[in-house]
């Protein structure tokens, strides 16, 4: 009992120390200017051209990720030419003070404002209308923090799954050991409880690889997002672009799997009077899109909300400028983090489950 008590207090100290280490930049920022919680959180859950490790926001330790621009041919350079560029402060018409980073070296002629790259106008500046610059933007294909996290997560999934596949290749169909032993029940769960349970038993086979891929992609990237320091911490699965793409994949699979029965239910709903049939057409058509749209919003909102809650709880310390608040905020943040581990799995499961449900409805044969 006492041992457990000692252990948990040790754990609290570690967590506290770690969180202090991670959020040190904001502590310093708080000393310098008024600490803006909203801005800090937004900065953290949004994409960036650098992968911040420690230290203050400007001049701290960061990994500067490559910038790739398409603007009359491709341009490659490190993002440090923005972050170590010239900081420009302007005041717009509404007397708002705005900062942006003007690129130097190979980044000359571009500016970085709120992680967006703009082309400088003829006067060599950004022209603000309200809070947004009205300058042209080059096509930004940079390896941002999310792209780097995406590559890393995908590589991790690939390594894990190829290791598991290698085990079976080497040992044949034997009882699994090691990594295969851990992952096989999850793979079988996706096959049986997600695919087989929702899709016709003669047709589910060809959807299993897709469902497995989205499940593990979401789950592992969710877990990576929960790690507060590099190589985790990117809010990848809480990024609307990622969830949009995944939901779009499910939409494509559903639409291209749809059989006569499925389209029949959309364009000429059986079993109701003709005026109702006509009335139902637009509703059913919208329904095709609302289902994946819900998938997109659900994953985005859940993961982003998780990140926001953890950051907000930690921010209590910096809002109050008193380290004693850590006694409240750290246990709460720890609790939410543990909850997020569950959510990480649950969201992957739900996404795959609902995708299977939509596909199942699309390939279902008429049975009346």
């Amino acid at each position, binding site marked *: 009992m006492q041992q457990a008590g000692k252990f948990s207090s040790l754990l609290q100290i570690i967590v506290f120390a770690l969180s202090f280490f991670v959020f040190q930049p904001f502590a310093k920022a708080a000393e310098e200017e008024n600490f803006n919680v909203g801005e800090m959180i937004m900065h953290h859950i949004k994409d960036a051209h650098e992968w911040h490790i420690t230290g203050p926001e400007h001049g701290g330790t960061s990994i500067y990720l490559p910038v790739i621009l398409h603007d009359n041919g491709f341009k490659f350079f490190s993002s440090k030419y923005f972050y170590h560029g010239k900081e420009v402060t302007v005041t717009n018409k509404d007397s708002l003070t705005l900062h942006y980073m003007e690129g130097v070296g190979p980044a000359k002629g571009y500016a970085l404002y709120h992680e967006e790259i703009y082309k400088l106008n003829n006067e060599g500046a950004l022209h603000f209308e309200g809070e947004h610059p009205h300058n042209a933007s080059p096509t930004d294909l940079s390896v941002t923090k999310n*792209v780097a996290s995406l590559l890393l997560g*995908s590589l991790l999934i*690939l390594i894990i799954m190829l290791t598991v*596949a290698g085990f079976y290749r080497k040992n044949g169909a034997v009882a699994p050991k090691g990594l*295969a032993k851990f992952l096989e029940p999850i793979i079988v769960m996706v096959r049986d409880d997600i695919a087989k349970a929702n899709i016709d038993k003669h047709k589910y086979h060809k959807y299993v690889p897709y469902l*497995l*891929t989205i499940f593990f992609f979401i789950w592992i990237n969710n877990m990576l997002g929960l790690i507060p320091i590099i190589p985790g911490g990117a809010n990848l699965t809480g990024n609307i*672009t*990622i969830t*949009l793409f995944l939901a779009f994949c499910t939409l494509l699979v559903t639409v291209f799997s749809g059989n006569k029965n499925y389209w029949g239910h959309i364009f000429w709903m059986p079993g109701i009077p003709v005026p109702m049939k006509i009335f139902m057409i637009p509703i059913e058509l919208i329904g095709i899109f609302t289902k994946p749209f819900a998938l997109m919003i659900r994953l985005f909102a859940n993961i982003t909300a998780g990140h926001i809650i953890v950051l907000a709880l930690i921010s209590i310390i910096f809002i109050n400028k008193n380290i004693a608040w850590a006694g409240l905020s750290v246990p709460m943040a720890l609790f939410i983090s543990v909850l997020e581990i569950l959510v990480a799995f649950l969201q992957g499961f739900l996404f795959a489950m609902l995708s299977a449900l939509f596909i199942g409805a699309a390939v279902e044969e008429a049975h009346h």
Partner: protein
Amino acid sequence: MDLILPDFGLLVWTGLVFSLLMFLLAKFAWKPILNAVNTREQKISEALELAEKTKAEMQALKAENDQILKEARAERDQILKEAKEAALGMVEDAKGKAKDEAAKVVESARLTINSEKAAAMAELKNHVASLSLEIAEKVVRHELSSDDKQKALATQLAGEIKMN
């Protein structure tokens, strides 16, 4: 606002990476893994089925063995019973035969005794007869040794005849 607006660059990267990941996983991971799992599941279900079948076979075999054993036991009992009966019969037979034989022996002994007795009696009779004759001869001779005696006898005999 840009939190809920998709980013073109990230979308391109996601499409590229996810498609590649999907392709590689489907070809090099999911296919061998699912194949191995399916094969093993099939193997296990086959093994279970076989075990069930073997069990049923064993049960049938055991029942058959029991039946054979039961029959063998019954047969053994039957044989024993018969053997006992046969032995008893043989003893009875032997007893009867011995009795008969003894009776025969006794009978033949009696017959022999009787015949011997008869023979002896006959011999005795003959002997007695010859003895009697000898005595009679001697007596007669003695009686008839003188004329006087012959006359007396004749007279006596004549007298006896008269009396008759």
